C-alpha cells in the first residue's frame, strides 16, 4: 500500500525532513532540555521540580546516545547514558525521601514557602 503511494521516490520533501542526522537528535535534546529547565524554574511543587530534573537528565542521555551512534567510539555513549539513568534513579529516591520528610514536618511542599531549616 505504501509502495503504491511511492513516497520513497519523491524529492519534494526537503532533506531536513527526510535525512535524519545528528542535528535532528540534538534538536530534540535541546528542546527537551530547555523545557526541563523552564519546568524547574517555574513550578512551585517540589515533585514538579523533580519532573523537570528528569526531563533534563533524559535530554542529556539522548545526547550521549546520539553521539554514540554518529561517532566512532562504539557503545561508550550508551554505557554513559546507562550510568546517567542509574544515578537518576538513586537521586529520585533520595529526593522523594527528602520531599516526604519535608511534607511530614512542614505539611507543604511548595518550594517558595520552604525557607526554614527546622520548624
Amino acid at each position, binding site marked *: 500500500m505504501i509502495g503504491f503511494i511511492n513516497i*520513497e521516490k519523491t524529492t519534494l520533501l526537503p532533506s531536513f525532513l527526510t535525512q*535524519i542526522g*545528528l542535528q535532528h537528535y540534538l534538536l530534540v535534546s535541546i528542546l527537551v532540555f530547555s523545557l526541563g529547565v523552564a519546568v524547574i524554574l517555574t513550578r512551585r511543587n517540589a515533585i514538579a521540580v523533580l519532573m523537570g530534573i*528528569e*526531563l533534563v537528565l533524559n535530554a542529556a542521555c539522548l545526547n550521549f546516545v546520539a553521539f554514540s551512534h554518529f561517532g566512532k567510539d562504539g557503545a561508550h555513549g*550508551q554505557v554513559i547514558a546507562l550510568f546517567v539513568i*542509574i544515578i*537518576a534513579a538513586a537521586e529520585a529516591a533520595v529526593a522523594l525521601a527528602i520531599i516526604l520528610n519535608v511534607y511530614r514536618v512542614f505539611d507543604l511542599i511548595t518550594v517558595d514557602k520552604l525557607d526554614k531549616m527546622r520548624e
Partner: protein
Amino acid sequence: METSIYYAIAFWCFAAMSVIPAILILLSKEIVRMAFWLLLTLSSFAGLYVLLGADFLAVAQLTLYVGGILILILFGIMLTKRSKADVQTVFSAESYAAIGLVAFLVIFLGLIQMVEKTAWIGSEQLVQTGIDAKSGQPHYLPKALPTTKSIGALLMTDFLLPFEIASVLLLAALVGSAYVIRRRDVS
C-alpha cells in the same frame, strides 16, 4: 547516513511524542497530569533510542525510568497531595508563564546556535543525494547489531570503576532514603 522515509517518519513521530508532552508538562496545572505527560515523554525517548540502535538502553529506559522512577514520583504525588485550596504566592500566574517562556527561549536559542555552528563529525555525510542513481533503490539503514553484549563487555573492562561506584551509590541511596523516611516513635 542516508535514511529511508520510514526512518524519518518514525523519528518525527517519536520526536513529536517527546517534545509535545514536555511542553504540556510546562503548561499543565495539575501535578498528576504532569506525571502522565512525563510518562509519554519517557516512553518516546525509548523509541528514539531504538532508532539510534541502542536496543538495550531503550529497554533499560522503559524499565528503570517508566517502571521505576515514574512510579516513585507517582507515589510521592499520592502521599503529598493537598486540598485544592493552595496558598497565595508572591508572583502571579502570568508572570510565572513569562518567566518560563524566557527561560526556555534563552537556553534553547543559545544551544541551537552552538549546534548549528559546530562542524560535527557525522555531519559531512548529510548530503542530499536523493535516490541511488545506479540501482534506483532507496538506501536503507545497515542492519543494527544488538548492543547488550558490547555494553556488558564495556561495563566489565572500560567502565569497571564507574560500575562499582554506581553499586555503592545505589546502596548508599537505599540506606539513606530508608533512614530519612523512618518512623520516629519517640517524642
